């Protein structure tokens, strides 16, 4: 079976997962307290108005009919209309999702650019000072609450040192770049606006690090332990006995083997981050899906909440597929 065939097969296998997700979301959103008709019309609406709203939104239909209507809507790319602002939810997502994606990508960059080298360093210098320091760094990372870390970063870099901005994606004097990808860093480069790029980069630094720290800490530990595990294998003795220089032994022969468990963690972290980081986005006032879903929840804006849940679960499933593809590329023993 070719890789393409594998990918298509896995994509097809996603359909029941997505149906399951939509069903759960639908049921939960209907089980929670609160009458959406009242949310739309306001608390002082007359009984007739409420009845009309229920009819036009299909809220008077039996639950299964509402569900099938919902399914047929999303299959046509219609995610419903926000109760809060009467805009199609899809339109909102097009604004908020790229912000979250950009933040996620920047966080993953932190995870990989710091986590991989630190993990390798800790493994190679096992039980020496560098290992102990990275362990300390990791333990702090997994045990620090995100909201506290965010506030501390803000206090230090924004309030006291005043070297980094504290909120938003860009400073007020800049206009948003032309929306090609929705990622400001990429769009700014596409516009050739280096000043804007610098400003956007400075804005993303703190939230991205804040968001990445937990995952960075976990990835560091996973890389360390899997690399140590690889370094104890017989083929490492063979590689050394064949006179290979140490950087090739560690960086190539051991590292490629240690990537297999690492890919899982990186993929899962990526998927989790894509769902939107509620705390980080709130603290840094980052206009992403996390912030969007909080605001929507406050208004019981269930089409919006369901859309976010759908997008993040889709992202999760797709990333798992990506992880499997990477597995197959790294480990020849996996045949798909």
């Amino acid at each position, binding site marked *: 079976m070719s890789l393409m065939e594998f990918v298509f097969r896995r994509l097809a296998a996603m359909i029941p997962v997505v149906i399951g997700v939509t069903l759960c979301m639908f049921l939960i959103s209907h089980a929670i307290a609160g009458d959406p008709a009242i949310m739309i019309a306001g608390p002082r609406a007359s009984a007739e108005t409420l009845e009309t709203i229920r009819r036009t939104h299909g809220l008077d239909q039996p639950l299964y009919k509402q569900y099938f209507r919902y399914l047929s809507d999303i299959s046509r790319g219609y995610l419903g209309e926000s109760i809060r602002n009467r805009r199609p939810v899809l339109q909102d997502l097009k604004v908020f999702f790229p912000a979250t994606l950009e933040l996620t990508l920047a966080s993953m960059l932190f995870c990989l650019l710091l986590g991989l080298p630190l993990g390798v360093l800790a493994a190679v210098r096992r039980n020496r000072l560098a290992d102990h320091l990275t362990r300390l760094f990791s333990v702090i990372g997994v045990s620090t609450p995100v909201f506290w870390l965010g506030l501390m970063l803000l206090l230090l870099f924004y309030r006291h040192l005043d070297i980094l901005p504290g909120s938003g994606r860009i400073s007020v004097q800049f206009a948003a770049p032309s929306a090609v990808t929705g990622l400001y860093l990429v769009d700014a480069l596409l516009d050739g606006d280096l000043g804007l790029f610098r400003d956007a980069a400075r804005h993303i630094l703190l939230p991205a690090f804040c968001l990445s720290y937990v995952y960075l800490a976990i990835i560091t530990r996973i890389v360390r332990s899997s690399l140590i595990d690889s370094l104890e*294998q*017989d*083929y490492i*003795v*063979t*590689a*050394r*006995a*064949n*006179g*290979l*220089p140490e950087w*090739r032994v560690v960086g190539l*022969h051991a590292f*490629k*083997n240690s990537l297999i468990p690492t890919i899982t963690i990186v993929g899962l972290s990526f998927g989790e981050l894509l769902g939107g980081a509620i705390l980080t986005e709130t603290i840094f006032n980052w206009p992403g899906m996390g912030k969007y879903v909080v605001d929507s929840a406050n208004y019981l804006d269930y089409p919006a909440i369901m859309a976010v849940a759908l997008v993040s679960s889709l992202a999760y499933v797709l990333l798992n597929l990506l992880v499997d593809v990477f597995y197959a590329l*790294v*480990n*020849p*023993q996996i045949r798909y």
Partner: protein
Amino acid sequence: MTAPPILSIRGLSVAFQSHGPPGRVVENLDLTLRRGEILGLVGESGCGKSVLARSILRLLPAPPARLTGEIFFGENLENLMAAGPQRLRAVRGGEISMIFQEPMTSLNPVFTVGRQMTEVVRLHTGAGRAKARKVCRDFLASVKLPDPETVLDKYPHQLSGGQRQRVMIATALSCGPKLLIADEPTTALDVTVQSQVLALLNDLTRARGVSTLFISHDLGVVAQLCDRVAVMYSGRLVELAPAESLFGRPAHPYTRGLLEAIPILSAPRAELLAIPGQVPNPADPPPGCRFHPRCGQRLDRCAREVPALTAQGEHWVACFNGHDR
């Protein structure tokens, strides 16, 4: 006429620092390997054979391993204990190569055979990609792997144990080493495959004049293959002799015990003979001759003094009543 030495180990001791008393796994060992010969090194599991093999190439991680003594190698008898890391890397795989016991795990599972072999060839010979690939293909053919071109593109898990060990042998010989250290190369293989691999090793090393240190706990295998045999017990050499002399007139009680422990297929079914007791713990070895607690002929002095290796002709033994028998 004896050939000049290719490897001369003098007073080698290997200790491991760990929690508790340091155990000396190899103690004050002298051993010389002559050019072109196959020297067998036998002993029970845990007697220090593999540690000795790995310490020749300085492959033991230090710490915890601590090596003392000298290891002279090559025509000029260069001291490997004094060699720098760069020189050591050139020796490893280039002038001394090694084959290991476990063919299933000794090859890296995520790289193709060709990738792993050419890496070594390119490193030591400076050959280009295409040239190295051709060299590897020829060596794979010389270890009688059918269709070497496709083997190059295979991953280790696509090969059988015997095929992988052939790949290991081909890699080990590919840079024209002067010395091959084979650490139980056939132990993990089926008996039929084992004899094929042995024959192959014998043919290839003798044809190329590669000296071989052949480590095994299988005396039958050693008898077939080796010119001389060294017997190790608890980190010390207890007997060293030409193969026919050692198997014909074993002088050390331990060697005799090993030989008696081999079941004979043609003999009527009798109780299997085993040497009573166990190999001593290297951290706490018995005083004197380390074999004396298990020896049937021990004298009083065996528990006090360490017997030195003494020669009768080519036959060396470290036992107080060794040659007298």
